[in-house]
């Protein structure tokens, strides 16, 4: 559905994207995650042909992103936190305006979504709150049943109730569509994403299926017989190692139930207990972001 190969985007002297490569399989929901400035929005804007790549290429629906035509755009839904819609039109007027551009626009679905998202048809877009505007953007992106839905930081600035309504609206209509969602609010994509791509300063740190990612990250707590210092050179797959008295904690990024005990005992003497807890996506993200930052510094 989406293929990105050695993608570079430069603004003046600043490299916003540095050789990015990843794929979004058909029917998947890929979360593009990363801290602010990681390159998520730039990647999406290159995919939508809003920016031209400086080097490398991206394909969307099998077409080079720089050659995307109205035919492809009619199959892509796009929702962004800073989308500028014509503020002086009402919600209803703008939907009326957009409808003829999409051959597959489903009027009954539009009505359903509008009611579901509680969008007032007679209110001008400029008079909508930020949350309502995001819902409006979603309502403009779903009625034509896009094959690909791209969501750029859709939850930014939304209160929990609106987020829930937004996600409810989205998930109910998701169907067979492929979703690319960028966010730094990981709690929200936890139940949505099937794949994760992690960006840091324009580079790809990893791209993985969500299940595999959750399986291989564990927060490990080792209790020792007596107080010990953390080893100077721990395995590279163990991050954020800390020692507090006789307790050592770290994040294992290559967790395997079978060999964790052996690896711990190989490094520490007098191991009393080993506890390995699954991590939330947010914890995984912050761990990786901190490690990346430490590596750079």
């Amino acid at each position, binding site marked *: 559905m989406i293929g990105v190969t050695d993608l570079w985007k430069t603004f003046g002297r600043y490299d916003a994207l540095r050789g990015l490569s990843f794929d979004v399989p058909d029917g998947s929901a890929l979360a593009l995650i990363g801290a602010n400035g990681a390159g998520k929005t730039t990647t999406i*804007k290159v995919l*939508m042909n*809003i*920016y031209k790549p400086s080097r490398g290429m991206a394909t969307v629906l099998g077409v080079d992103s720089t050659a995307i035509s*109205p*035919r492809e*755009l*009619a199959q*892509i839904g*796009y929702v*962004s936190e*800073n*989308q*500028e*819609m*014509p503020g*002086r*039109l009402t919600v209803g*007027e703008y939907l009326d*305006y*957009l409808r*003829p*551009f*999409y051959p597959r626009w489903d009027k009954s679905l539009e009505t359903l979504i509008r009611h579901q998202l509680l969008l007032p048809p007679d209110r001008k877009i400029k008079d909508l709150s930020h949350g309502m505007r995001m819902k409006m953007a979603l309502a*403009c992106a779903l009625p034509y049943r896009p094959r690909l839905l791209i969501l750029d930081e859709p939850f930014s600035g939304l209160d929990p109730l609106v987020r829930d309504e937004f996600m409810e609206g989205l998930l109910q209509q998701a169907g067979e569509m492929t979703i690319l969602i960028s966010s730094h609010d990981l709690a929200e994509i936890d139940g949505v994403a099937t794949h994760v791509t992690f960006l840091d300063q324009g580079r790809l740190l990893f791209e993985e299926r969500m299940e595999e990612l959750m399986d291989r990250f564990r927060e490990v707590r080792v209790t020792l017989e007596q107080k010990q210092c953390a080893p100077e050179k721990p395995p590279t797959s163990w991050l954020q190692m800390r020692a507090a008295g006789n307790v050592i904690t770290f994040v294992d990024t290559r967790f395997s139930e079978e060999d964790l005990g052996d690896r711990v005992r190989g490094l520490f003497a007098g191991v009393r207990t080993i506890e390995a807890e699954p991590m939330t996506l947010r914890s995984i993200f912050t761990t990786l972001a901190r490690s990346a930052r430490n590596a750079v510094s």
Partner: protein
Amino acid sequence: MVWHILKKDWKLLWRHVVLVWAVQIFFGWMQFVVDSSENRTLERILDVFGPLPLLASAFLLAAVVHQDTIPGDRQDWLVRPVKSWDLIAAKLLFALLAVNVPIFVGDVLQGLVHGFSLSAVVGSATSRTIFLLIGFTFPVLVLGALTKSLVEAVIGAIGFALGVSLFQQLVLSRSPDALQLRWSGVSWVPSLVVLFIAVAGAGVVLGQQYRQRTTLFSRGLAVGVVALCLLTQFLPWHAAFAVQQWLSPSRGMPTPISIRFDPSLGKFRHPSGINPEGSDRRSHLFNDETTVTLHVPMRIESIPEGAILNSDRSEVRLINSNHKGDDLGLGDPLLVRKNDSNNDTPAYHSLKIRRDLYDRIKNQPVQLQVNYSLTLLALAASEALPAKGAHRQLVLAGSCTTMVDETETLIEVHCLKPGNLPSCLSASLEHTPSGQKNPEALFCEPDYSPFFGFAHYGPDALSRRGVTLRFRYADGSVQYPVSGPQLGESQVRFRIYHPQAHFKTSLVIPQITLGDWETQ
């Protein structure tokens, strides 16, 4: 989808459209009142605020483009299946419907209420509409496409005006090769070239910007187009005049007109009490304290009776003993009218020579060559209307009114006409019963353009000309044959001259001592 996008823009901007139309109607009404009743207060208001309708239209045009802004990365239309050509076509259609067609309709109505025929009015209104579309609408649409907001567009327009002004000050005014055609009858030639460049340039910039959205590159392209337009000011005289000759109703010299030096006419002297400067608008360009004025006596042979010979340009060259030429510059405009049946017409041609050069050679015999580009203007019609309080439709002069001015020393004549004004016309006061007439005044503003509307940012598709004819001085110092008491039975007679032929000829004076012909 063009119509669909247009309807959206109309829904968003209909209030602005109504406002612009209101401004246009209000100014059209004011212009009608001024033309009909000589209302000075309204005339002054129009002088100051005359550009307001076009300015309001410019804001509207920029606003319609900004409904779907091109620069930027957040606009919703960028992610919609909107074809760029549909978008351009919709904006252009909006411009036509909201700005250009209403201006056209206003022009036609203005002409009709002044009593002109529909065909005459539609012709000039169409010509002006095309000119405004290319010279005004397209550039404003381009400006809109290159900017994000109205503020940016205004800044861009100011930057453009400053750039053009700087180019004029720093380059054009200092270059001897520039502006050769300014104020001449062939100034329409570079204007036409500019229009062609503007059409092509607007097409390229709009196409590039809407399809590729490369704002910086498109801005560079636009600057290049403007530079190309400015370079037309370097169009050489002879090229433009050759175009004019090619278009001339009778190509080449209609009769073997020749110019020869005739020292027997004696030295030129200004009649006492008469201002040596003519009424020709071009003469002030050549006044300079560092020059010496010569009046070279000459005879011009074979001008048809009643015709006017106008020198559009005269290049003066000094040929030295080695047969090499030095350019002395341009001669003053020469306007000669044949009033009698003699074969040749005496005339003095005023030439200005740099004082330092003149002082060096004034007492030496030198060879002088003057290369003339000339236009023969034939009498097309003679028309008259009563001298006081008349309002009449004349065939060639247009719709004219006459009135005595507040000081009761002048007859003021105002004429309106769809399309171009005659290049030359003469006017005189004639007392009908006695046949006496006051000296004739000649008004020449050569414009040989085959189309109407070049550089015509005026209020409508009508051309206006006012002339004044003196019949007395307040202090009674000069007596006119036709004056106060006879005005009621007098008429203003116009003679209208149209260009008949454009040609070149040279005057070679093998030996002349310049000092002999310095003006006293």
